[in-house]
């Protein structure tokens, strides 16, 4: 019997889990309908702060303080809290692939529901240089054979400090022609803000770590040259059966 086709996002999640698992990262997850505490407050995004405007949020009617999560970052807190509850101290390494939501008009490059992969590494000596090393290895293994370069630019996300934007570039003869030598914005990242660690019950005097959040749809678009992000939820076999 012929074999059916795996959705490209599932394929990416599977591959990312394989790569990160080899680096010691555990797959973690959390609810899609999330409290404002986990989605915002505990991540150092106070109410009525302009930083909340950075993400257009879906609120659930008649359920005060409930939102469709705008990022996978709430799981940083949920995971660390759960570990602490079980008496497990850092080091922690987790990835969180999953669906997130933004209340935006949709077009070829914007979807109201899409996928992210969050990464979190916390320990006594986890550095920003480790973030770069981890992402370099991830991209190298994902774009097999191509030479991958990454670079950081300053940015701001309330839950990290310092905060950076990460660009990636594929170079060399093995890079897909359409992507070769082009810097592409891949994700927001940084060193976990001490108040986020504190909110999760982790001692920020003793531990530090990095976090990143990358759009998987965007990664899929780049990797396979997909021309419309809305295809991801089209359930159209003319799309899915190409993977």
């Amino acid at each position, binding site marked *: 019997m012929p*074999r*059916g086709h*795996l*959705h*490209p*996002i*599932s*394929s990416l999640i*599977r*591959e990312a*889990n*394989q790569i990160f698992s080899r680096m*010691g990262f*555990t*797959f973690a*997850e959390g609810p*899609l*309908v999330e409290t404002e505490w986990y989605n915002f407050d505990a991540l150092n995004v106070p109410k009525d*702060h*302009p930083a909340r405007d*950075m993400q*257009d949020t*879906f*609120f*659930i*009617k*008649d*359920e005060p303080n409930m939102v469709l999560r705008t990022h996978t970052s709430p799981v940083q807190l949920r995971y660390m809290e759960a570990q602490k509850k079980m008496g497990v101290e850092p080091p922690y*390494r987790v990835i969180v692939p999953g*669906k997130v939501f933004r*209340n935006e*008009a*949709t077009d070829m490059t914007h979807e109201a*529901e899409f996928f992210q992969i969050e990464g979190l*590494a916390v320990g006594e000596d986890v*550095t*920003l*240089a*480790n973030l*770069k*090393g981890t992402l370099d*290895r991830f991209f190298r293994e994902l774009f097999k054979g191509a030479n991958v370069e990454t670079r*950081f*630019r*300053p940015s*701001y996300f*309330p839950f990290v400090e*310092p*905060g950076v934007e990460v660009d990636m570039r594929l170079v060399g003869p093995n890079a897909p022609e359409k992507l070769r030598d082009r810097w592409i914005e891949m994700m927001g990242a940084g*060193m976990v803000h*001490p108040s986020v660690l504190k909110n999760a019950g982790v001692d920020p005097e003793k531990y*530090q770590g990095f976090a990143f959040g990358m759009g998987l749809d965007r990664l899929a678009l780049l990797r*396979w*040259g997909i021309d419309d992000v809305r295809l991801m*939820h089209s*359930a159209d*076999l*003319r799309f899915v*059966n190409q*993977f």
Partner: protein
Amino acid sequence: MKISREWLQTYFEQPLPDAHSLGEVLTFHAFEIEGIENGILDVKVTPNRGHDCLCHRGIAKELSAILTVPMKFDPLRDPVSLETTDTVSIQIQEPALCSRYIAGHIRGVKVGPSPEWLKDFLESIGQRSINNVVDATNYVMFNLGQPLHAFDAGELSERDGKYAIAVRKAKAGERMVALDGKEYTLSDSMLLIVDGHTDMSIGIAGVKGGAPAAINEETENIVIESANFDGVSVRRTAQALKLRTDASSRFEQVLSPELAAYGMKMVTDMIVQLAGGEIVGFADDYEQIQQKQNVAVSLAKINRVLGTKLHESDVEDAFARLQFAYAKEGDVFNVFVPFERLDLAASEDLVEEVARIIGYDKVPSIEMSAFPKKPEVNANFYSAEVAREELLSKDYSEVFTSVFAEKGDRIVANKIDGMAPYLRSTLLDGLKSAYDRNVRTKELLGLKYVRIFEIGAVWQKGNETMMLGIADETGIREEPLKISYGSSEYQELPTSSATRYQPFSRYPFIVRDIAMWVPKNTESFTEVVRIFGDHSQGLLRHVDLFDQFQKDERVSYAFHLVFQSFDRTLTDIEVNAIMKNITDAVAAKGFEVR
């Protein structure tokens, strides 16, 4: 925010690099640049730097540090003194929402057009020139970041030679006509500026001035406002009135009350210069004086967070370029934070300052050492992967449909497009519609049947459940995903080997059948398929051999031919012509078309 290179140049003796070079260094050391046009940079100031960088002085300061070019002068460094007058009194009824209010009284101005240089500066960043007094307030706001407002004192009441300004909450339902000519209905959470003698409202605090005391050609006496309003309060007011202004977008970022004095000094000097008159004096109500802030960071901490091997001299250099004064004790830098840098509160903030000024390219790439524990297996993901694999092996393909639905138990309150606002309580509706759509196009893909599945969340009552839904020729069904616990390892499963996605046509397709007798050899099959391609004008999307049988030395083939264009809807007439050409060509080969 729009930043003019020429305007920035007023802060420097030596010529600045061109706008693109400025954009480049800002990108790697400060802020993303959203566009550059005619010497104007659109700088995306991050919300942590709205305190000090929504103005030319802030960006000039950044450039001075990044490029190691000294500023001619920094208007925020020398203390300013404002001569007191008793011709204006101030009464702040809500000190929690207004930490400082300075009124500056100028007599005998002559309102008129602004000089060309001022008009040019304002117009270059998308502002409209109004008159010399109003332009001066706008110029200083875009220069220093302090919103300012000018009132026509002639419209204020005077008692015993004194004007009175009061800051109070609006009454519920109170109305005010603002400078834009529109009438706004206020709520009792909003803050107003009023004439303290008559209680006439003259402005919505931090958002917009009122029409009653607007500057006009006849204005001779003015009262300038340079104040500090609470960020949350201004933000809520502007949101509620749908009146986001250059002033409100600065106050909502939270400004230092110290800045108000610098703004006042600069704007009153400028008005006297442009419109004449004399400064009578200032009234300054400032009870809760901003505390001076010190933040400490050690060299060891900086290197521990960044993973670098920086030296003390690197940190000293970064702080010198930022003009941060500090006291050093061992390897600890105790930084005296400039009043406008409200973002600097913890040692991590200083780590970031050092990192971005020296450049993130100095951060090496270092892999972490091996993790001491084996990664745990997530039971839900493990189980989803098992279900996927089983269905894939039976020729089912995986789809995702939207979580938004026309019905359900929970509903989104603020969906921007207003469509399908419910969270789905079942996968069945989405899968049914996906199944039907795919059945309609299955011939394009040469599919004999459509078999799809989805693993996704549904919301029933208060619960979020992971569901497995399946649609195939026997019907549509769903059940909660079966979770198997206790696995110690994921199976190593295959990932997609696709290299490049090929866009498909969105236009309707037409299917035609053709059957023929051909001699029994492999060449004739290849020949026939080649003929189809050669005579289809590039419109043949799919060839499906759906029947074949042998009789004596001949084989009968029957094909579905699927035609579709990438740029139009095909007509029967077009496809008939193609089919005629194909039929003729097949016959010309000596094959018998049935």
